[in-house]
């Protein structure tokens, strides 16, 4: 259900940005979301379509790109991918069910996952949280917004 808050955040961020740049109509917003959050795209889009009404995003569509995370251990230097910690992710999901904490806060991942080689939680995660990656502005084309 926090997909509604995420949609709220996306609409606010892009509207603020559009106003600051004097863009009156946004036609597409593309967001990147860590795939291990298992965010529900249907709910996110439903919420987006509701919240966007009356904003510069009124006629826009939402595109979602799921990004697979990669991890680097600061303790031993080992790098590994999301697929390699699938078992750990599955066990957290089965412990929590719907209230899976990484669903709500992907930045909690180092606390729940550990390095496959040394067991450390001192992990740098490449994909941390939800980002607006691209915005398409009527008359201006696509603008990349990731700094």
């Amino acid at each position, binding site marked *: *259900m*926090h997909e*509604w*808050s*995420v949609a*709220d*955040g*996306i609409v*606010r*961020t*892009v509207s*603020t*940005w559009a106003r600051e740049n004097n863009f009156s109509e946004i036609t597409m917003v593309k*967001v990147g979301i860590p795939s291990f959050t298992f965010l529900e795209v249907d709910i996110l889009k439903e*919420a987006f379509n509701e919240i966007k009404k009356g904003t510069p995003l009124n006629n826009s569509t939402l595109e979602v790109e799921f990004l697979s995370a990669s991890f680097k251990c*600061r303790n031993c230097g080992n790098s590994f991918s999301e697929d390699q910690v699938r078992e750990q992710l599955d066990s957290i999901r089965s412990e*929590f069910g719907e*209230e899976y*904490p990484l669903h*709500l*806060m992907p*930045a*909690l*991942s*180092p*606390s*729940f996952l550990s390095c496959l080689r040394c067991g450390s*939680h*001192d*992990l*740098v*995660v490449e994909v*941390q*949280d*939800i*980002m*607006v990656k691209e915005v398409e502005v009527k008359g201006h084309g696509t603008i990349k*917004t*990731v700094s």
Partner: protein
Amino acid sequence: MEPLRQLAEDKLKGRKVIAVMSAKGGVGKSVISSLLALSIGKGTLLIDMDVHTMATAKLFGFNSMHNVGKGGLEPFSVGGIGLISLSGVVKDNYVLLPGNNVGKVMESLVAYVNMEGFKTVVFDLPPGLGEELLTLERLTGNRFTSLIVTTPSKVSIKVVEYLVRYLKERRVNGFLVVNMSYFNCGKIVRPFGGIDEAKSLSERYGIPLFEMPIDPSIEEFVGKVQDYRGDLKKSLEKIATSL
């Protein structure tokens, strides 16, 4: 663009933000935060930002999970106020995070809270100068009031001066709260030493000082701090009216 950061900033805008801080641990910061939030009363949301200890939820006796609805994370309702704790997200798991992630977690916790109906937000920050304080500055543009908690101990006062100096430099309004300052048994006794050092600090930096009494009975209220009505609560009610 970070949608959660924008959402967190927007949620704090137009609300009074109070941060309870301390330079070191063990000075009773979580008890002070809890009683302060209860003293300000209705319309107050207490957010436990001490994400590694999550002590506030324990003081109030909460060990359940927060519900998440269309409006976001629903605060626990207790003693007339709202309470948000990361323990309501992670259950009884420990939280251990690299610094950068602490800021992200704090940002998303603020972003997701349903703040409908709350006028004041009290943050219980972890001891010391760290990521949580920087995040609070980012999210509020330094528009918050700080309550700096110390004990009369000389070490605590010396360490707290860093915090006082930093906040002064950042132009953040502050109050100095000397916890466990005196014991009232007909006459005033100061078992942890005098408060001359604290007074001098308060005068040098021009921040108001409040003394808090020692009340051993507070221990009996761990798990139900909302029911405590003793002297410490009365002293915090005075601070609440001057904030």
